[in-house]
Protein backbone atom coordinates (compact mmCIF):
# COMPACT_ATOMS: atom_id res chain seq x y z
CA UNK A 1 0.00 0.00 0.00
CA UNK A 2 1.30 3.44 -0.82
CA UNK A 3 1.76 5.67 2.19
CA UNK A 4 -0.85 8.41 2.57
CA UNK A 5 1.85 10.94 3.46
CA UNK A 6 4.92 12.46 1.90
CA UNK A 7 7.96 12.88 4.10
CA UNK A 8 9.92 16.09 3.58
CA UNK A 9 13.14 15.33 1.77
CA UNK A 10 14.89 18.05 3.79
CA UNK A 11 13.97 16.58 7.16
CA UNK A 12 16.10 13.54 7.89
CA UNK A 13 19.19 14.50 9.89
CA UNK A 14 17.76 14.73 13.38
CA UNK A 15 16.19 11.51 14.77
CA UNK A 16 13.99 13.58 17.10
CA UNK A 17 11.29 13.83 14.45
CA UNK A 18 10.51 14.89 10.90
CA UNK A 19 8.22 16.92 8.69
CA UNK A 20 5.60 15.30 6.52
CA UNK A 21 2.70 16.38 4.39
CA UNK A 22 -0.67 14.70 4.22
CA UNK A 23 -3.50 15.92 2.02
CA UNK A 24 -1.75 19.23 1.57
CA UNK A 25 -1.28 19.91 5.27
CA UNK A 26 2.14 20.16 6.86
CA UNK A 27 2.80 18.15 10.03
CA UNK A 28 5.74 17.40 12.26
CA UNK A 29 6.06 14.00 13.85
CA UNK A 30 7.81 14.00 17.24
CA UNK A 31 9.51 10.68 17.91
CA UNK A 32 9.55 8.76 21.20
CA UNK A 33 13.28 9.30 21.45
CA UNK A 34 12.61 13.03 21.91
CA UNK A 35 9.71 12.57 24.36
CA UNK A 36 11.43 13.78 27.55
CA UNK A 37 12.90 16.84 25.83
CA UNK A 38 9.60 17.71 24.13
CA UNK A 39 7.66 17.52 27.40
CA UNK A 40 10.16 19.74 29.17
CA UNK A 41 10.19 22.13 26.20
CA UNK A 42 6.42 22.49 26.31
CA UNK A 43 5.81 22.51 30.07
CA UNK A 44 9.01 24.18 31.29
CA UNK A 45 8.16 27.57 29.80
CA UNK A 46 10.65 27.65 26.92
CA UNK A 47 8.12 27.10 24.13
CA UNK A 48 5.86 29.83 25.50
CA UNK A 49 8.74 32.25 25.96
CA UNK A 50 10.05 31.67 22.43
CA UNK A 51 6.67 31.89 20.73
CA UNK A 52 5.56 34.94 22.72
CA UNK A 53 8.69 36.81 21.72
CA UNK A 54 8.29 35.85 18.06
CA UNK A 55 11.45 33.73 18.01
CA UNK A 56 9.83 30.40 17.14
CA UNK A 57 6.86 29.38 15.01
CA UNK A 58 3.84 28.25 17.01
CA UNK A 59 2.27 24.82 16.62
CA UNK A 60 -0.74 22.91 17.80
CA UNK A 61 -0.80 19.23 18.72
CA UNK A 62 -2.74 17.34 16.09
CA UNK A 63 -4.92 14.27 16.26
CA UNK A 64 -3.95 13.15 12.78
CA UNK A 65 -2.28 9.73 12.60
CA UNK A 66 1.51 9.76 12.76
CA UNK A 67 3.41 9.00 9.56
CA UNK A 68 5.57 6.37 11.26
CA UNK A 69 3.51 5.16 14.26
CA UNK A 70 6.20 2.79 15.54
CA UNK A 71 8.47 5.78 16.26
CA UNK A 72 5.89 8.38 17.12
CA UNK A 73 5.24 10.27 20.32
CA UNK A 74 3.14 13.14 18.97
CA UNK A 75 2.10 14.85 15.77
CA UNK A 76 2.24 18.64 15.56
CA UNK A 77 0.72 21.03 13.10
CA UNK A 78 3.17 23.91 12.78
CA UNK A 79 2.39 27.46 11.72
CA UNK A 80 3.03 27.63 7.99
CA UNK A 81 5.88 29.77 6.65
CA UNK A 82 4.70 31.65 3.52
CA UNK A 83 7.93 31.13 1.61
CA UNK A 84 10.99 29.02 2.42
CA UNK A 85 14.21 30.91 1.69
CA UNK A 86 17.82 29.90 2.16
CA UNK A 87 20.85 31.68 3.63
CA UNK A 88 22.54 32.00 0.24
CA UNK A 89 19.54 34.12 -0.78
CA UNK A 90 19.77 36.47 2.19
CA UNK A 91 21.38 39.87 2.31
CA UNK A 92 24.03 40.64 4.90
CA UNK A 93 21.68 41.91 7.61
CA UNK A 94 19.31 39.01 7.09
CA UNK A 95 22.15 36.56 7.83
CA UNK A 96 23.25 38.68 10.77
CA UNK A 97 19.75 38.90 12.26
CA UNK A 98 19.31 35.14 11.83
CA UNK A 99 22.62 34.58 13.64
CA UNK A 100 21.67 36.87 16.52
CA UNK A 101 18.26 35.20 16.80
CA UNK A 102 19.96 31.80 17.07
CA UNK A 103 22.18 33.04 19.92
CA UNK A 104 19.27 34.70 21.74
CA UNK A 105 17.28 31.49 21.51
CA UNK A 106 20.25 29.50 22.82
CA UNK A 107 20.57 31.86 25.77
CA UNK A 108 16.86 31.77 26.55
CA UNK A 109 16.98 27.98 26.31
CA UNK A 110 19.72 27.73 28.88
CA UNK A 111 17.72 29.92 31.26
CA UNK A 112 14.96 27.35 31.05
CA UNK A 113 17.29 24.38 31.43
CA UNK A 114 17.52 23.44 27.74
CA UNK A 115 20.38 23.49 25.27
CA UNK A 116 20.00 24.36 21.59
CA UNK A 117 21.45 21.26 20.00
CA UNK A 118 22.18 22.65 16.54
CA UNK A 119 22.71 26.02 14.91
CA UNK A 120 21.66 25.53 11.32
CA UNK A 121 20.92 28.65 9.31
CA UNK A 122 18.30 26.53 7.53
CA UNK A 123 16.32 26.46 10.79
CA UNK A 124 15.66 30.18 10.37
CA UNK A 125 13.02 31.63 8.04
CA UNK A 126 11.62 35.11 7.56
CA UNK A 127 8.00 35.98 8.25
CA UNK A 128 6.85 39.58 7.85
CA UNK A 129 10.44 40.76 7.67
CA UNK A 130 11.55 39.09 10.89
CA UNK A 131 13.73 36.02 11.34
CA UNK A 132 12.05 33.15 13.15
CA UNK A 133 13.14 29.62 14.13
CA UNK A 134 11.13 26.88 12.49
CA UNK A 135 12.54 23.75 14.11
CA UNK A 136 10.46 22.97 17.19
CA UNK A 137 12.71 20.02 18.06
CA UNK A 138 15.96 21.95 18.37
CA UNK A 139 16.26 21.94 22.16
CA UNK A 140 17.51 19.12 24.37
CA UNK A 141 17.44 18.82 28.12
CA UNK A 142 20.48 20.61 29.44
CA UNK A 143 22.79 18.41 31.49
CA UNK A 144 25.38 20.04 33.73
CA UNK A 145 28.74 19.87 32.04
CA UNK A 146 27.45 19.70 28.47
CA UNK A 147 29.34 21.50 25.72
CA UNK A 148 27.54 23.09 22.75
CA UNK A 149 27.30 20.62 19.89
CA UNK A 150 26.06 23.38 17.61
CA UNK A 151 29.21 25.46 18.00
CA UNK A 152 30.96 24.30 14.86
CA UNK A 153 27.74 24.56 12.85
CA UNK A 154 27.16 28.08 14.11
CA UNK A 155 30.63 29.16 13.03
CA UNK A 156 30.22 27.56 9.60
CA UNK A 157 26.65 28.69 8.92
CA UNK A 158 26.79 32.20 10.36
CA UNK A 159 30.11 33.52 11.57
CA UNK A 160 32.22 32.54 8.55
CA UNK A 161 29.85 34.00 5.90
CA UNK A 162 29.32 37.19 7.90
CA UNK A 163 33.04 37.70 8.49
CA UNK A 164 33.85 37.03 4.83
CA UNK A 165 31.07 39.32 3.59
CA UNK A 166 32.06 42.08 5.97
CA UNK A 167 35.83 41.92 5.69
CA UNK A 168 36.49 40.48 2.22
CA UNK A 169 33.60 40.55 -0.27
CA UNK A 170 29.82 40.33 -0.01
CA UNK A 171 29.77 37.81 -2.88
CA UNK A 172 31.43 35.22 -0.65
CA UNK A 173 28.07 34.50 1.01
CA UNK A 174 27.47 32.54 -2.18
CA UNK A 175 29.87 29.90 -0.86
CA UNK A 176 26.85 28.73 1.14
CA UNK A 177 25.46 27.45 -2.15
CA UNK A 178 28.47 25.19 -2.55
CA UNK A 179 28.85 24.04 1.06
CA UNK A 180 25.51 22.91 2.39
CA UNK A 181 26.72 22.64 5.99
CA UNK A 182 28.26 26.09 6.00
CA UNK A 183 31.60 27.47 4.90
CA UNK A 184 34.49 25.21 5.97
CA UNK A 185 36.47 27.09 8.59
CA UNK A 186 39.86 26.34 7.07
CA UNK A 187 38.66 27.95 3.85
CA UNK A 188 37.26 30.96 5.71
CA UNK A 189 40.54 31.28 7.61
CA UNK A 190 42.50 31.33 4.35
CA UNK A 191 40.26 33.93 2.76
CA UNK A 192 40.04 36.32 5.72
CA UNK A 193 42.62 39.12 6.10
CA UNK A 194 45.73 37.91 7.94
CA UNK A 195 45.23 40.42 10.72
CA UNK A 196 42.08 38.62 11.88
CA UNK A 197 44.25 35.67 12.95
CA UNK A 198 46.29 37.73 15.37
CA UNK A 199 45.60 37.97 19.09
CA UNK A 200 42.63 36.66 21.01
CA UNK A 201 39.82 38.36 19.05
CA UNK A 202 36.61 36.47 18.38
CA UNK A 203 37.60 35.79 14.78
CA UNK A 204 41.08 34.62 15.82
CA UNK A 205 39.49 32.08 18.14
CA UNK A 206 36.24 31.06 16.48
CA UNK A 207 37.58 30.88 12.95
CA UNK A 208 41.36 30.68 12.84
CA UNK A 209 42.16 28.65 15.96
CA UNK A 210 38.98 26.66 15.38
CA UNK A 211 40.15 25.71 11.88
CA UNK A 212 43.55 24.66 13.20
CA UNK A 213 42.04 22.64 16.01
CA UNK A 214 39.71 20.87 13.59
CA UNK A 215 42.67 19.83 11.47
CA UNK A 216 44.72 18.77 14.49
CA UNK A 217 41.91 16.72 16.00
CA UNK A 218 40.18 15.57 12.84
CA UNK A 219 40.69 11.87 13.53
CA UNK A 220 40.49 11.92 17.32
CA UNK A 221 37.44 10.09 18.68
CA UNK A 222 34.87 12.19 20.46
CA UNK A 223 34.90 9.76 23.40
CA UNK A 224 38.11 11.45 24.50
CA UNK A 225 36.69 14.86 23.77
CA UNK A 226 33.81 14.07 26.08
CA UNK A 227 36.23 14.82 28.89
CA UNK A 228 35.41 18.45 28.06
CA UNK A 229 32.94 19.70 30.58
CA UNK A 230 31.59 23.19 30.60
CA UNK A 231 29.64 24.92 33.30
CA UNK A 232 26.49 26.87 32.47
CA UNK A 233 28.51 30.06 32.92
CA UNK A 234 31.03 28.88 30.37
CA UNK A 235 28.26 28.18 27.85
CA UNK A 236 26.85 31.64 28.37
CA UNK A 237 30.33 33.07 27.90
CA UNK A 238 30.55 31.21 24.63
CA UNK A 239 27.20 32.57 23.38
CA UNK A 240 28.19 36.07 24.47
CA UNK A 241 31.57 35.79 22.82
CA UNK A 242 29.96 34.77 19.51
CA UNK A 243 27.51 37.64 19.77
CA UNK A 244 30.30 40.11 20.48
CA UNK A 245 32.17 38.78 17.47
CA UNK A 246 29.17 39.16 15.19
CA UNK A 247 27.79 42.50 16.40
CA UNK A 248 30.63 44.68 15.04
CA UNK A 249 30.61 42.96 11.62
CA UNK A 250 29.07 45.45 9.19
CA UNK A 251 28.51 45.69 5.50
CA UNK A 252 27.77 49.05 3.93
CA UNK A 253 26.59 48.74 0.35
CA UNK A 254 28.71 50.81 -1.95
CA UNK A 255 29.85 50.56 -5.51
CA UNK A 256 27.50 47.72 -6.42
CA UNK A 257 25.44 47.78 -9.54
CA UNK A 258 22.04 49.07 -8.58
CA UNK A 259 22.20 50.44 -5.07
CA UNK A 260 21.57 53.96 -6.34
CA UNK A 261 19.41 52.98 -9.29
CA UNK A 262 16.42 55.11 -8.46
CA UNK A 263 18.68 58.10 -8.09
CA UNK A 264 20.43 57.38 -11.40
CA UNK A 265 17.38 56.51 -13.44
CA UNK A 266 15.73 58.90 -15.84
CA UNK A 267 12.41 58.53 -14.09
CA UNK A 268 11.19 61.69 -12.39
CA UNK A 269 9.29 61.45 -9.09
CA UNK A 270 6.03 62.01 -10.94
CA UNK A 271 6.80 59.29 -13.49
CA UNK A 272 7.66 56.86 -10.68
CA UNK A 273 4.33 57.65 -9.02
CA UNK A 274 2.50 57.17 -12.30
CA UNK A 275 4.24 53.86 -12.88
CA UNK A 276 3.35 52.76 -9.33
CA UNK A 277 -0.31 53.61 -9.94
CA UNK A 278 -0.43 51.60 -13.16
CA UNK A 279 1.34 48.65 -11.54
CA UNK A 280 -1.15 48.82 -8.65
CA UNK A 281 -4.15 48.75 -10.96
CA UNK A 282 -2.73 45.84 -12.97
CA UNK A 283 -2.12 43.92 -9.73
CA UNK A 284 -5.74 44.50 -8.79
CA UNK A 285 -6.88 43.08 -12.11
CA UNK A 286 -4.87 39.92 -11.49
CA UNK A 287 -6.02 39.74 -7.82
CA UNK A 288 -3.23 37.40 -6.71
CA UNK A 289 -2.51 35.95 -3.26
CA UNK A 290 1.17 35.45 -3.95
CA UNK A 291 3.65 37.38 -6.07
CA UNK A 292 7.28 37.29 -7.13
CA UNK A 293 8.74 40.63 -8.10
CA UNK A 294 11.80 39.64 -10.14
CA UNK A 295 14.55 42.21 -10.47
CA UNK A 296 12.80 44.19 -7.75
CA UNK A 297 15.76 46.44 -6.90
CA UNK A 298 14.97 47.90 -3.46
CA UNK A 299 11.35 46.80 -3.61
CA UNK A 300 9.69 50.10 -4.49
CA UNK A 301 7.11 48.42 -6.74
CA UNK A 302 7.03 45.15 -4.76
CA UNK A 303 5.28 47.19 -2.10
CA UNK A 304 2.41 47.83 -4.52
CA UNK A 305 1.72 44.11 -3.99
CA UNK A 306 2.73 43.58 -0.35
CA UNK A 307 0.75 46.54 0.93
CA UNK A 308 -2.32 44.98 -0.65
CA UNK A 309 -1.75 41.94 1.62
CA UNK A 310 -0.20 39.83 -1.14
CA UNK A 311 2.67 37.58 0.04
CA UNK A 312 5.47 39.04 -2.05
CA UNK A 313 9.06 38.02 -2.78
CA UNK A 314 11.21 40.95 -3.93
CA UNK A 315 14.23 39.36 -5.56
CA UNK A 316 17.22 41.07 -7.04
CA UNK A 317 20.70 40.14 -8.16
CA UNK A 318 22.21 43.07 -6.28
CA UNK A 319 22.97 42.41 -2.60
CA UNK A 320 23.06 46.16 -1.96
CA UNK A 321 19.51 46.69 -3.23
CA UNK A 322 18.25 43.72 -1.23
CA UNK A 323 20.06 44.93 1.87
CA UNK A 324 18.44 48.36 1.46
CA UNK A 325 15.06 46.72 0.93
CA UNK A 326 15.42 44.52 4.04
CA UNK A 327 16.55 47.40 6.25
CA UNK A 328 13.60 49.54 5.11
CA UNK A 329 11.21 46.64 5.71
CA UNK A 330 12.63 46.11 9.18
CA UNK A 331 12.49 49.80 10.09
CA UNK A 332 8.90 50.14 8.89
CA UNK A 333 7.60 46.88 10.39
CA UNK A 334 6.06 46.12 7.01
CA UNK A 335 4.29 42.85 6.34
CA UNK A 336 3.95 40.31 3.53
CA UNK A 337 7.31 41.16 1.94
CA UNK A 338 10.54 39.17 1.70
CA UNK A 339 13.55 40.60 -0.13
CA UNK A 340 15.98 37.99 -1.46
CA UNK A 341 19.21 37.99 -3.43
CA UNK A 342 18.55 35.95 -6.55
CA UNK A 343 20.49 36.01 -9.80
CA UNK A 344 17.79 35.24 -12.36
CA UNK A 345 20.35 34.23 -14.95
CA UNK A 346 21.36 31.46 -12.55
CA UNK A 347 18.61 31.09 -9.93
CA UNK A 348 19.04 28.87 -6.86
CA UNK A 349 19.07 25.24 -7.91
CA UNK A 350 17.99 22.17 -5.96
CA UNK A 351 20.79 21.24 -3.57
CA UNK A 352 21.86 18.68 -1.04
CA UNK A 353 21.31 14.97 -0.65
CA UNK A 354 19.56 13.46 -3.67
CA UNK A 355 19.11 17.02 -5.01
CA UNK A 356 16.22 17.30 -2.61
CA UNK A 357 17.24 19.05 0.60
CA UNK A 358 16.93 22.60 -0.72
CA UNK A 359 14.42 23.35 -3.43
CA UNK A 360 15.23 25.31 -6.52
CA UNK A 361 13.73 28.77 -6.77
CA UNK A 362 11.22 27.69 -9.41
CA UNK A 363 10.21 24.61 -7.38
CA UNK A 364 9.13 26.96 -4.60
CA UNK A 365 6.54 28.36 -6.96
CA UNK A 366 4.48 28.76 -8.93
CA UNK A 367 2.90 31.94 -7.67
CA UNK A 368 -0.19 33.77 -8.82
CA UNK A 369 1.67 36.76 -10.21
CA UNK A 370 5.14 37.38 -11.62
CA UNK A 371 6.28 40.99 -11.84
CA UNK A 372 9.20 41.90 -14.09
CA UNK A 373 9.62 45.65 -14.18
CA UNK A 374 12.56 47.14 -16.04
CA UNK A 375 14.03 43.66 -16.16
CA UNK A 376 13.47 42.37 -19.67
CA UNK A 377 16.37 44.27 -21.24
CA UNK A 378 18.79 42.82 -18.70
CA UNK A 379 17.69 39.29 -19.53
CA UNK A 380 17.38 39.74 -23.28
CA UNK A 381 20.30 42.05 -23.97
CA UNK A 382 22.83 41.64 -21.16
CA UNK A 383 22.30 37.89 -20.91
CA UNK A 384 21.21 37.14 -24.52
CA UNK A 385 18.11 35.19 -23.42
CA UNK A 386 15.64 34.87 -26.31
CA UNK A 387 12.35 36.64 -25.53
CA UNK A 388 10.26 33.48 -25.95
CA UNK A 389 12.47 31.76 -23.39
CA UNK A 390 11.84 34.64 -20.98
CA UNK A 391 8.11 34.19 -21.58
CA UNK A 392 8.35 30.45 -20.90
CA UNK A 393 10.17 31.04 -17.62
CA UNK A 394 7.58 33.56 -16.46
CA UNK A 395 4.78 31.17 -17.45
CA UNK A 396 6.41 28.42 -15.37
CA UNK A 397 6.72 30.77 -12.40
CA UNK A 398 3.28 32.37 -12.37
CA UNK A 399 -0.26 32.45 -13.69
CA UNK A 400 -0.21 36.17 -14.32
CA UNK A 401 2.66 38.39 -15.37
CA UNK A 402 3.16 42.13 -15.26
CA UNK A 403 6.04 42.93 -17.59
CA UNK A 404 7.56 46.26 -18.44
CA UNK A 405 8.95 46.47 -21.96
CA UNK A 406 11.93 48.81 -22.27
CA UNK A 407 12.63 49.65 -25.95
CA UNK A 408 15.98 50.34 -27.58
CA UNK A 409 15.23 54.06 -27.56
CA UNK A 410 15.35 54.07 -23.76
CA UNK A 411 18.53 55.46 -22.26
CA UNK A 412 19.04 52.38 -20.05
CA UNK A 413 18.99 50.09 -23.08
CA UNK A 414 21.24 52.47 -25.00
CA UNK A 415 23.67 52.18 -22.13
CA UNK A 416 23.62 48.38 -22.32
CA UNK A 417 24.15 48.47 -26.09
CA UNK A 418 26.89 51.12 -25.94
CA UNK A 419 29.59 48.55 -25.27
CA UNK A 420 28.48 45.75 -27.57
CA UNK A 421 27.21 44.97 -31.04
CA UNK A 422 23.45 45.13 -31.42
CA UNK A 423 22.54 41.59 -32.44
CA UNK A 424 18.97 41.85 -31.20
CA UNK A 425 16.78 42.27 -34.29
CA UNK A 426 13.68 40.93 -32.55
CA UNK A 427 14.03 43.23 -29.55
CA UNK A 428 11.13 45.57 -30.17
CA UNK A 429 7.53 45.85 -29.06
CA UNK A 430 6.18 43.67 -31.85
CA UNK A 431 8.83 41.00 -31.26
CA UNK A 432 8.15 41.10 -27.54
CA UNK A 433 4.38 40.75 -27.95
CA UNK A 434 4.84 37.89 -30.40
CA UNK A 435 7.22 36.05 -28.05
CA UNK A 436 4.82 36.35 -25.12
CA UNK A 437 1.80 35.35 -27.20
CA UNK A 438 3.19 31.80 -27.19
CA UNK A 439 2.47 31.31 -23.47
CA UNK A 440 0.23 34.21 -22.49
CA UNK A 441 -2.92 36.08 -23.38
CA UNK A 442 -2.53 39.85 -23.38
CA UNK A 443 -4.96 41.30 -20.84
CA UNK A 444 -3.89 44.95 -20.65
CA UNK A 445 -1.27 47.27 -22.07
CA UNK A 446 -0.46 50.74 -20.86
CA UNK A 447 2.22 53.27 -21.80
CA UNK A 448 4.11 54.78 -18.91
CA UNK A 449 3.77 58.59 -19.10
CA UNK A 450 7.00 60.46 -19.59
CA UNK A 451 8.92 57.46 -20.97
CA UNK A 452 9.11 55.15 -23.99
CA UNK A 453 8.24 52.19 -21.82
CA UNK A 454 5.09 50.07 -21.74
CA UNK A 455 3.51 47.96 -19.01
CA UNK A 456 1.78 44.70 -19.96
CA UNK A 457 -0.54 42.43 -18.03
CA UNK A 458 -0.53 38.84 -19.27
CA UNK A 459 -2.49 35.78 -18.22
CA UNK A 460 -1.02 32.35 -18.81
CA UNK A 461 -2.81 30.35 -21.50
CA UNK A 462 -4.89 27.52 -20.10
Amino acid at each position, binding site marked *: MNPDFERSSASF*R*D*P*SGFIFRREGTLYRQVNQ*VYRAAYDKFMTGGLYDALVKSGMLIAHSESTTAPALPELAYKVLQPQVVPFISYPYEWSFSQIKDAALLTLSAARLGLEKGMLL*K*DASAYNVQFINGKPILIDTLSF*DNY*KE*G*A*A*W*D*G*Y*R*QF*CQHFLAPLALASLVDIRLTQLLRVYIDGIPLDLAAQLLPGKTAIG*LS*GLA*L*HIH*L*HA*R*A*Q*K*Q*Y*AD*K*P*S*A*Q*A*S*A*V*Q*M*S*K*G*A*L*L*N*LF*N*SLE*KTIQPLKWEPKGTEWGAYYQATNYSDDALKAKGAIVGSLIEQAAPNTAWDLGANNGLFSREASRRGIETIASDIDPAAVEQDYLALKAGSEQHLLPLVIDLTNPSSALGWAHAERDSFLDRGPVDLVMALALIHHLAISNNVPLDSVAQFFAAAGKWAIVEFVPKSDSQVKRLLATRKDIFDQYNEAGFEKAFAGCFDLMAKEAIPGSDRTLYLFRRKA
Partner: protein
Amino acid sequence: MGFILFKLNYLDPGSGSLLVQLLAAGLLGGLGILAKVFWGRIRAFLKGEKYVPPQPTEEEKEKPEE
Protein backbone atom coordinates in the same frame (compact mmCIF):
# COMPACT_ATOMS: atom_id res chain seq x y z
CA MET B 1 29.77 10.73 32.74
CA GLY B 2 31.11 12.44 29.67
CA PHE B 3 29.93 9.95 27.09
CA ILE B 4 26.33 10.39 28.19
CA LEU B 5 26.39 13.81 26.57
CA PHE B 6 26.76 12.36 23.09
CA LYS B 7 24.27 9.57 23.18
CA LEU B 8 21.25 11.27 21.67
CA ASN B 9 23.00 14.04 19.84
CA TYR B 10 22.82 13.90 16.09
CA LEU B 11 25.51 16.44 15.27
CA ASP B 12 29.13 15.42 15.54
CA PRO B 13 30.45 18.19 17.76
CA GLY B 14 34.00 17.58 16.52
CA SER B 15 36.90 17.16 18.94
CA GLY B 16 38.66 20.29 17.72
CA SER B 17 35.47 22.35 17.99
CA LEU B 18 34.96 21.17 21.57
CA LEU B 19 38.48 22.17 22.46
CA VAL B 20 38.12 25.64 20.98
CA GLN B 21 34.76 26.38 22.56
CA LEU B 22 36.21 25.44 25.91
CA LEU B 23 39.15 27.70 25.28
CA ALA B 24 36.97 30.55 24.01
CA ALA B 25 34.55 30.33 26.91
CA GLY B 26 37.48 30.30 29.34
CA LEU B 27 39.56 33.01 27.74
CA LEU B 28 36.74 35.40 27.08
CA GLY B 29 34.75 34.87 30.22
CA GLY B 30 37.41 33.69 32.61
CA LEU B 31 35.01 31.81 34.88
CA GLY B 32 33.57 28.42 35.51
CA ILE B 33 35.65 26.10 33.38
CA LEU B 34 36.35 22.50 34.23
CA ALA B 35 38.48 20.37 31.96
CA LYS B 36 39.86 17.16 33.26
CA VAL B 37 41.96 15.93 30.41
CA PHE B 38 41.97 18.83 28.03
CA TRP B 39 44.24 21.32 29.73
CA GLY B 40 47.13 19.06 28.82
CA ARG B 41 45.85 18.99 25.24
CA ILE B 42 45.39 22.74 25.12
CA ARG B 43 48.95 23.28 26.31
CA ALA B 44 50.34 20.79 23.84
CA PHE B 45 48.20 22.22 21.03
CA LEU B 46 49.32 25.80 21.61
CA LYS B 47 52.98 24.83 21.96
CA GLY B 48 52.77 22.59 18.91
CA GLU B 49 53.96 19.59 20.94
CA LYS B 50 52.74 16.04 20.72
CA TYR B 51 50.20 15.28 23.40
CA VAL B 52 50.76 12.27 25.67
CA PRO B 53 47.51 11.25 27.34
CA PRO B 54 47.66 10.50 31.07
CA GLN B 55 47.07 6.90 32.08
CA PRO B 56 43.45 6.33 33.13
CA THR B 57 42.87 5.58 36.80
CA GLU B 58 41.60 2.15 37.91
CA GLU B 59 38.14 3.63 38.48
CA GLU B 60 37.92 5.02 34.96
CA LYS B 61 39.08 1.75 33.41
CA GLU B 62 36.08 -0.05 34.87
CA LYS B 63 33.57 2.26 33.21
CA PRO B 64 31.75 0.78 30.23
CA GLU B 65 32.45 2.59 26.98
CA GLU B 66 28.84 2.99 25.95
